[in-house]
């Protein structure tokens, strides 16, 4: 192989490799792929939060045109009850196995018909009778069923004597923060097409990791994993909501088994809301004590989240309390509250995103009580080593993020008194927050073939759910092989490509890159006869040091400016800037898109998002895009993001993940800005109109309410 380039592909901004396909409609997502003999499955879901299916009357449905049949718990193929997920056994995978309804939205039947319209019409004609039982959705940190969360992600912090330090503090802030149940809302609804060839299961599926989905399916069907073939070429977003083997995939495999035809299940948007997964509700109590000079002495972070008894889950809200600040005493307590809820799943920046809202709001409250600048307070309390583990950070460029962000945002000119800036009827405020998100690597395999025509085929079980993995990994492979990116062909999104971590935990790109880099190394040592293709395959399982003796984290500082109309409660984000330390950046254009997108989701969380449930049934009352608002174009300003120079020494190429850090700090920055604008703390998300609205005194605030000033709100200008 000739080193035909001097400048590396890594570090250069390049548009997405599949960009041309995506702007012409040629990129095919799961439900777009034609399939001969295809039939369509339509889910029917439970409308009560707890109960038992007494009867499924399919007599009408079965007589309707095009209907092949109906699956329910009485006739569905049996699945292996020992199948599980990342955390262990997972009852939410065991669909149509018994009559128990564990949450509202649980699939209770599947109708299969020749066309989607026929399947839908027949599903509407199905009469399902459920005996409802009393349900419990009363989430509360002190709920009788509350229990300590799993410590699978690491032990709780218990450094120093929290009570003693608090007693010695000049200022103690103790406040309770709440975040609602939220929905991932990837634009592509979950979809799957499954068919059996002998005892091999084939599937096209919208997921974040085809390999792990194939593992779950193999377990459910008690067959060798090599007999399960899952492909996911283009995936329309995931954000954690497609991280597990979804109900569409399991049910399609069951229906195909039963009816002997390829079965497609494209979930409706309402079903995605009620049946897939959500970010759980949290309630968090943060206690922070400081000396009069702004030195933190104690950080206590107690957090509770809701989960389903069907499966273990960790919403690690308290992680940042172990990372962000130096204090003699740090205590974290994470509590799981089992309720009859939709089982939660990681959602962009799991744990860190709701956790950061609480912790970084509380830090802002400390700055308020001390009357110090919140940037200065943060800079004064930076740790030299990880404050709980005592380990050195592998890299920690947080101070650079804060300083660079403050400079670009013009923070120095800020009057820190609340309610100090007005434009006509509008109150203007600025706020900021810092964030960290754990980084690392998981085992994966990669194969690289040096083809006889001088090109290289790189095969890795990666997923590109919009992260740009296809483009980034091509650059990584090109540099590892020392060739131009144009000579590298990447194959991803296929469980047959071997064991691989999925797109999640901000660990996809680092895990796949590690395997590609090692495979390239191996290949370069074996190249001989250019007339024959040569393949090198590497599994990184044995190469990863899981106890590196250093804390590996990414960092950010987020700055926000808001305009608030106290007469209407409308909050508009006018400026949003994030500065990030995420190791070496592979492709600045796409990386910026990732962190900007993360911040947009954080903005959306701050102002809009909330799953609302009917108190009587526990059913979602706003399970569609008209009721569950995600930020639209008009809500989003020209978000700015940049990266400070950084290099991750624990990664062979200096990389860290960046898919989730963008979301983590944003809600707190916006909430802090709303406080600065209005003088009122927003400790419950989202920051709805009714939580901001104020009585407006006659003749005072209506003055200056001119056309032009009003446009500053509606235009976000």
């Amino acid at each position, binding site marked *: 192989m000739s080193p035909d380039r001097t400048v590396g592909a890594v570090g250069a901004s390049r548009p997405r490799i599949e960009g041309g396909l995506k702007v012409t409609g040629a990129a095919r997502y799961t439900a777009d792929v034609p399939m001969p003999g295809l039939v369509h499955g339509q889910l029917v879901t439970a*409308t009560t939060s707890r109960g038992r299916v007494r009867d499924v009357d399919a007599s009408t449905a079965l007589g309707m045109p095009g209907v092949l049949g109906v699956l329910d718990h009485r006739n569905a193929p049996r699945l292996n009850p020992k199948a599980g997920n990342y955390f262990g056994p997972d009852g939410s995978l065991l669909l149509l196995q018994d009559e128990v309804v564990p949450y509202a939205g649980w699939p209770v039947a599947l109708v299969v018909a020749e066309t989607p*319209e026929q399947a*839908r*019409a027949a599903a*509407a004609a199905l009469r399902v009778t459920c005996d409802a039982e009393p349900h419990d959705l009363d989430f509360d940190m002190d709920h009788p069923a509350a229990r300590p969360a799993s410590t699978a992600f690491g032990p709780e912090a218990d450094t120093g004597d929290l009570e003693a330090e608090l007693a010695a503090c000049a200022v103690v802030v103790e406040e309770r923060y709440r975040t609602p149940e939220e929905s991932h809302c990837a634009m592509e609804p979950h979809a799957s097409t499954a068919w059996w060839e002998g005892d091999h299961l084939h599937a096209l599926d919208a997921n974040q990791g085809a390999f792990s989905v194939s593992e779950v399916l193999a377990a459910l069907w008690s067959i060798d994993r090599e007999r399960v073939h899952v492909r996911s070429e283009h995936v329309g977003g995931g954000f954690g909501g497609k991280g597990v083997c979804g109900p569409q995939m399991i049910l399609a495999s069951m229906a195909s088994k039963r009816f002997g035809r390829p079965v497609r299940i494209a979930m409706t948007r309402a079903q995605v809301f009620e049946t897939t997964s959500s970010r759980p509700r949290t309630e968090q109590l943060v206690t922070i004590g400081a000396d009069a000079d702004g030195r933190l002495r104690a950080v206590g972070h107690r957090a509770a989240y809701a989960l389903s008894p069907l499966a273990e889950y960790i919403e690690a809200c308290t992680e940042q309390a172990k990372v962000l600040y130096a204090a003699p005493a740090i205590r974290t307590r994470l509590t799981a509250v089992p309720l009859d809820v939709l089982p939660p799943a990681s959602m962009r920046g799991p744990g860190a995103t709701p956790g950061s809202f609480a912790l970084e709001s509380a830090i802002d409250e400390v700055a308020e009580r001390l009357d110090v600048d919140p940037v200065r307070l943060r800079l004064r309390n930076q740790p030299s080593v990880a404050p709980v583990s005592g380990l050195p950070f592998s890299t920690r460029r947080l101070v650079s993020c804060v300083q660079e962000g403050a400079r670009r945002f013009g923070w120095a000119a800020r009057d820190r008194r609340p309610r100090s800036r007005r434009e006509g*009827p509008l109150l203007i405020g600025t706020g900021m927050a810092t964030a960290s998100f754990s980084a690392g690597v998981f085992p994966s395999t990669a194969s690289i073939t040096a083809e006889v025509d001088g090109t290289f085929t790189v095969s890795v079980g990666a997923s590109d759910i919009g992260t740009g993995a296809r483009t980034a990994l091509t650059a990584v492979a090109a540099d590892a092989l020392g060739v131009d990116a144009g000579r590298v062909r990447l194959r991803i999104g296929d469980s047959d490509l071997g064991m691989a971590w999925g797109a999640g935990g901000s660990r996809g790109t680092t895990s796949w890159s590690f395997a590609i880099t090692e495979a390239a190394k191996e290949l370069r040592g074996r190249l001989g006869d250019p007339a024959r293709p040569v393949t090198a395959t590497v599994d990184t399982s044995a190469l990863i040091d899981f106890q590196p003796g250093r804390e590996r984290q990414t960092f950010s500082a987020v700055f926000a400016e808001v305009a608030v109309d106290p*007469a*209407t*409660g*409308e909050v*508009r984000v006018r400026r949003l800037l994030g500065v990030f330390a995420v190791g070496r950046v592979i492709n600045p254009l796409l990386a910026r898109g990732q962190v900007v997108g993360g911040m947009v989701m954080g903005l959306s969380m701050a102002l*809009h998002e909330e799953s*609302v*449930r*009917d*108190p*009587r*049934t526990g*059913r979602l*009352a*706003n399970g569609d895009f*008209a*009721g569950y*608002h995600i*930020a*639209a*174009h*008009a*809500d989003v300003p020209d978000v700015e993001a940049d990266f400070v120079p950084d290099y991750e020494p624990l990664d062979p190429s200096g990389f860290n993940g960046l898919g989730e850090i963008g979301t983590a700090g944003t809600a707190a920055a916006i909430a802090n800005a709303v406080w600065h604008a209005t003088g009122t703390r927003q400790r419950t998300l989202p920051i*709805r*109109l*009714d939580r901001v*609205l104020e*009585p*407006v005194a*006659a*003749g*005072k605030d*209506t*003055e200056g*309410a*001119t*056309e032009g000033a*009003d446009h500053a709100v*509606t235009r*976000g200008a």
Partner: protein
Amino acid sequence: MREFAYQRAARVHDALLAVAGDRNARYLGGGTNLVDLMKCGVERPTRLVDVRRLPLDGVHVAPGGGLVIGATTTNSDAAAHPEVRRRFPALSQALLAGASGQLRNMATVGGNLLQRTRCGYFADLSRPCNKRLPGSGCAAIAGVHHNHAVLGHSAHCVATHPSDMAVALAAFDAVVRYQSLDGGGEIPLSRFYLPVGDRPDLETALPPGALITAVALPGVPGSLRSRYRKVRERASYAFATVSVAAALDVRDGVVRDVRIAMGGVASRPWRAGSAEAVLRGARPTPDRLRACAEEALSGAEPLPDNGYKVLLAKNLIAAVLGELAAAEEVG
């Protein structure tokens, strides 16, 4: 969705005949609401009579300076029409505040008037709803009603009307024109929507089988300024939390005419007549505007979780009137 027959009417009379006597027949306009409700199973017609291509579109200036807007005029065309923008700015603004560009290109003026509520329980077949299934009860009263009515509701229904356009039409004293097999007729918008009472399923005074053909707006003096403001939980593409259409005519510092209508607060566009009386003939001082806003909500009966709408509506009325009064001083 249940199977249905489809026919496209070439003339109004054909459409009327096709629907006559068939209680499972529906007129199809832009379809933005009807097709949606058919997908949800709320509407289950066996026959659709497509009226979208009837020659009922266009905006015409009427003698006396009013406008007649044809029923099949799209929301986009009505909003962009120079005469609508010049004479009735609040109507153009209300249309533009509704839905999205795509939906406005589809939706017709007639269909907009006949939109059904977006109360979640109305579309949830597993729950009671007196509007969908008379006599079944109202799930919203003891359920989720954060965005429901504070005025004019009853123990049978607390849903709101979703239209923005109708709020502006209410402020401008619009008249709905229709055709039926018995002939033509007119209904003032103020009487077009029925009070909720004990039959929330009966929403309009339109005779059975009648087809809306146009909306007529009486002329207004050039000195009447108008404005529509919509507050919602997103900056765009969301239904109103509270909206206000207001018009103000101030001459020599005295209010000659004032119109106030609210959206998002009741089962129909809510014209605040008694509040208008507070301002008419008076000077539009901040105190007077506030008193007017207070009067507009004096009959409010908020539900346990939507009391904020009362304050929001008062603030919004005062703000919009304040803007109109300020513009009056400048202009």
